[in-house]
């Protein structure tokens, strides 16, 4: 029963938050929906922690729960996903309680947020490809609505339109691939499918369609085009969720499907190639954003998310292709560190935007004096994202990088080339994060009307995330405890190992 609880809590929480939101439709009670949502997410997170210790201690590496004829199973990867997503949701819902206070229809916002997380949690528990798909769609649909949540603003509507078209088309293509999987195996049960050896052109067609279909959510170039629009137009809390965990979940879903074909090295090679293109394009685009006339802070962060997805995909794919543990460890750990640091960056950006009502970086000149805590937290996030020690981003990036060099034995000097590209990318990322930091601390131009300390309810998650980013940089072992079982899980699958 314990296993089912996080999912149940989130879904029940969604209903109660809606009811609470309706009750608190008057202005004084606007906190109610957010508070309810936060409480339920916090409960879900705590229970997830309890499950986590069971999962890591159990001999099989997973905890099962039978419901009717169905089976839910939380394995190392699942609990990792659940922990990171519920924690980030908790931060975002505390933050949004204050950040969204002036918006109407909060009784819709928080339930949708919880449902989106419920989708991610469900993906972590499913043992059946079709169940994964249902939860994936739950996550997607909730995120469509959340992106367009401020429908009175044109850019939200425009971004939502592009997002829904691309993402729904991707889902449909993935669904087509699922039909092909069913045709080949006659089942969606992962336990049944995994053992079967498979190859041939049908398998390859499935792989192509899967990568293309789920690649939309994972923001793989050239299917990344929705991301900068959606991330910059969504409310900042949602941007943090999208960048921090939703696109990574897209990749994990892709991973779960592709693991069926994991014996085929070529699949992982495809992903390595795409990852390199993705990170380079993401970084270069973020770099030119800063050079434009009105650089949009959230758009820069969004492009940087594309680049970071590149790192994650690269790490995991190199690991799976050539049996390099460091790659998987780096990739999965990077999902965790990136969720916290990019979440942090977006929450800080939201605080700036709330105070001075602009996303233009140039108009944020001198904001470091008006909003010292938030700006400092942003500096931590930015340095961590650009891979500077002693912050968490550095720790995960060098592990990914190490994987490239480890692969030298298998793929010759191309491994070094991959490693070099990763490193050159991290230099480029300095090229846009450092100027942002510079702008924050230059002399204010006097246009920072209304810039003052961020509200406490927003500062709490910011401070917590900043602290985690620092702690995971100094003592990465803390985070690796959750990552290590995932690495073991992948190693146990065989493949390149």
């Amino acid at each position: 029963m314990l296993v089912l609880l996080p999912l149940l809590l989130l879904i029940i929480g969604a209903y109660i938050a809606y009811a609470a939101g309706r009750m608190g439709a008057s202005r004084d009670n606007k906190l109610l929906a957010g508070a309810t949502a936060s409480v339920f997410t916090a409960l879900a997170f705590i229970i997830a922690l309890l499950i986590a210790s069971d999962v890591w201690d159990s001999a099989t590496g997973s905890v099962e729960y039978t419901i009717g004829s169905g089976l839910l199973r939380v394995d190392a990867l699942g609990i990792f996903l659940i922990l990171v997503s519920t924690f980030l949701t908790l931060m975002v819902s505390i933050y949004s309680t204050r950040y969204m206070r002036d918006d109407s229809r909060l009784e819709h916002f928080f339930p949708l947020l919880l449902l989106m997380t419920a989708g991610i949690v469900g993906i972590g528990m499913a043992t059946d490809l079709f169940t994964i798909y249902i939860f994936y769609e739950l996550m997607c649909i909730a995120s469509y609505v959340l992106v367009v949540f401020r429908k009175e603003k044109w850019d939200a509507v425009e971004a939502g339109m592009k997002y829904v078209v691309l993402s729904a088309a991707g889902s449909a293509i993935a669904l087509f691939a699922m039909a092909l999987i069913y045709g080949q195996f006659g089942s969606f049960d992962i336990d049944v499918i995994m053992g079967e050896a498979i190859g041939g052109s049908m398998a390859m067609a499935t792989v192509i369609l899967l990568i293309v279909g789920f690649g939309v959510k994972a923001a793989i170039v050239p299917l990344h085009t929705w991301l900068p629009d959606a991330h910059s137009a969504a409310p900042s809390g949602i941007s943090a969720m999208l960048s921090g965990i939703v696109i990574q979940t897209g990749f994990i879903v892709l991973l779960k499907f592709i693991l069926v074909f994991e014996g085929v090295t070529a699949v992982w090679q495809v992903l390595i190639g795409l990852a390199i293109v993705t990170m380079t394009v993401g970084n270069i685009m973020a770099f030119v954003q800063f050079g434009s006339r009105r650089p949009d802070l959230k758009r820069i962060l969004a492009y940087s998310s594309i680049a970071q997805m590149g790192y994650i995909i690269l790490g995991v794919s190199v690991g799976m292709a050539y049996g390099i543990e460091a790659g998987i460890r780096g990739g999965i750990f990077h999902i965790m560190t990136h969720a916290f640091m990019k979440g942090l960056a977006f929450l800080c950006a939201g605080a700036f935007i709330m105070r001075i009502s602009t996303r233009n970086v140039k108009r944020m000149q001198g904001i470091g004096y008006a909003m010292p805590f938030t700006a400092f937290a942003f500096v931590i996030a930015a340095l961590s994202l650009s891979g500077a020690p002693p912050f968490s981003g550095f720790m995960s990036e060098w592990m990914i990088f190490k994987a490239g060099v480890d692969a030298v034995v298998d793929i010759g000097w191309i491994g070094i080339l991959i490693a070099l590209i990763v490193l050159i990318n991290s230099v480029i990322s300095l090229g846009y994060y450092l100027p942002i930091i510079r702008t924050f601390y230059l002399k204010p131009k006097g246009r920072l009307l209304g810039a003052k300390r961020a509200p406490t309810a927003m500062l709490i998650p910011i401070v917590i995330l900043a602290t985690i980013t620092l702690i995971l940089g100094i003592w990465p072992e803390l985070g690796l405890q959750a990552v290590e079982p995932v690495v073991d899980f992948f190693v146990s699958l065989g493949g390149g190992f």
Partner: protein
Amino acid sequence: MLLDDSILVTLIVLLPFISVGVIALMRKMGETVIAGVGVVFSLITAVLVFLLVPDIFGSGATAITESYDWIPSAGIVFGIYIDPLSLLLALIAAGIGFLVMVYSMKYMEGKKGLARYYALVMLFIGAMVCLVLTDNLLILYIFWEIVGLCSYALISFDVEDKKAANAGIKAFVVTRVGDIGLIVGIFLLYAGAITIPGTTVAQAFSIQYLISNAAAIPMQFLALAAFAFIIGAMGKSAQLPLHAWLPDAMEAPTTISALIHAATMVNAGIYVLARMAPVFIQVDGWTTALLYLGGITALVAAIMALVEPDLKRLLAYSTISQLGYMVFAIGLGLGGVFISGFHLMNHAIFKALLFLCAGAIIHSIGTRNMYEMRGLRKEMPKTHIFMLFGTLALAGIPIFSGFWSKDLIFHEAYSLELTIPLILVVLSAVLTAAYSFRMYFLVFGGEGKRREKAHPAPAAMWIPLAILGIGAIISWITVDYFSSGFETFGFADVHAHPIGDFIVDTFSSTAVLLSLLAILLGLGIYSARNSLKQGYISQWIIWAARKGFGFNWLYDACVRVVRWCGRRIRRLQTGDVNINTVGFVLMVLLIFLFLLFQGVI
């Protein structure tokens, strides 16, 4: 012994970082309190490091080793290995760090963000000490990046000044390019070492393990790693062509220029090369590459120093040039490791002295342009004396510290019959003497035409100057101590230099003639400067040197290339719903073609 070694080492590793937290918590308190806390912590750190001296330099001493499990999952161990080489660097970092802290009390008085300043300097000292004491290359790299981060944050310390902020960014980005070399080198060594049967992950990153198993590492890994390490050193130690960040870094407060950009951080590259020399020495062409890299850097930077009007930038070029000597010295072979370390120590002391003197002058008259200084001899007598010591040491005048180590380099190069490299370094010694005289006479000679008079340096500033000034005269005496320490620890080709023999050897060798010749020629160039400026070729050289030999243009070109690509890629982000979906077709085709090429389909 007062303290157990392992407790001592743990304290040295932890204390500076604890102090960072303490200073950060005290940021709201008064200026004096913050400065006081900073000075006390740096004093304790320095004392603790000095307590290690008897254990390392005593007769029959052995290395102090410690190891802390840091990331057990990835097999990363925080290993400590202390021998004379690492202790030498740690002594410089902690000792000069303390003097700079004392000096800062007065120099930084009344500036905004002092808590940030002291916290960052303590973070820097701690990271630098850890960088040299650790035995694990990966840990070394982490601290290497942290000192880079501190350098960036301190160059941009005056955050409201756009020029300083840009200089910080340039320094961080350019050194980061060098860091690519270092990390690639580290992982190549790891990949090579892990192929030795029975090697664990922790061992493959351990410097001592790599040194003792150097012969077993496959040559293709070793050779590439050797050159990758040179690139790493190029970035941090400001060797051509990655040197151009250092002159710009002079936007930092002068204390920072003295500590980070003259005495300690820029030596990190030299340290890594010296430390790894026993591993790389078997790679063909590695030493030759270092000889030419160091020699050319020394020469080119000296030329740029000769035409520089800004006092601090001149000192920065001079630092680049002197770092070139140290790289050159390592290129002389394993025996050169000691010479390089010896020159590193002398240089750290006299260059920190010169920077701090420059700081006193800038603090007093508020300009960095040497042509606006003139005639400070009478107005700032103490600063004048100490700066004179520093200048003489830099120019390599006998009995001042710079002379001994530079002469040792010439001697070694001469006895190895390396003609062309020797010409390069002697030529740069000539120019070094010339720009030293130019600097001294511009700053102190003649009569000042300034409206307000300069005020002499306050006590908190001249006492550190006095200590360093005396150091600039006598630091070479420790050669006895250090060389025997190196010999005890089994550094190949290093022999103890008892002090008497050292003096006799120095003055009886042919190389001393080269040193003296260089000084005379330098003086000649300086006195004939007006007629020399007329020559066609020299005018051309002066023009090129003022432009920095086009290295800044090179950096800008790299940025422009990325930006050009970016603008092209940017057009692909049309924002059109229909065109976005073309991505599906594109991706299917891409993957299909790839699989086709792999022969999977």
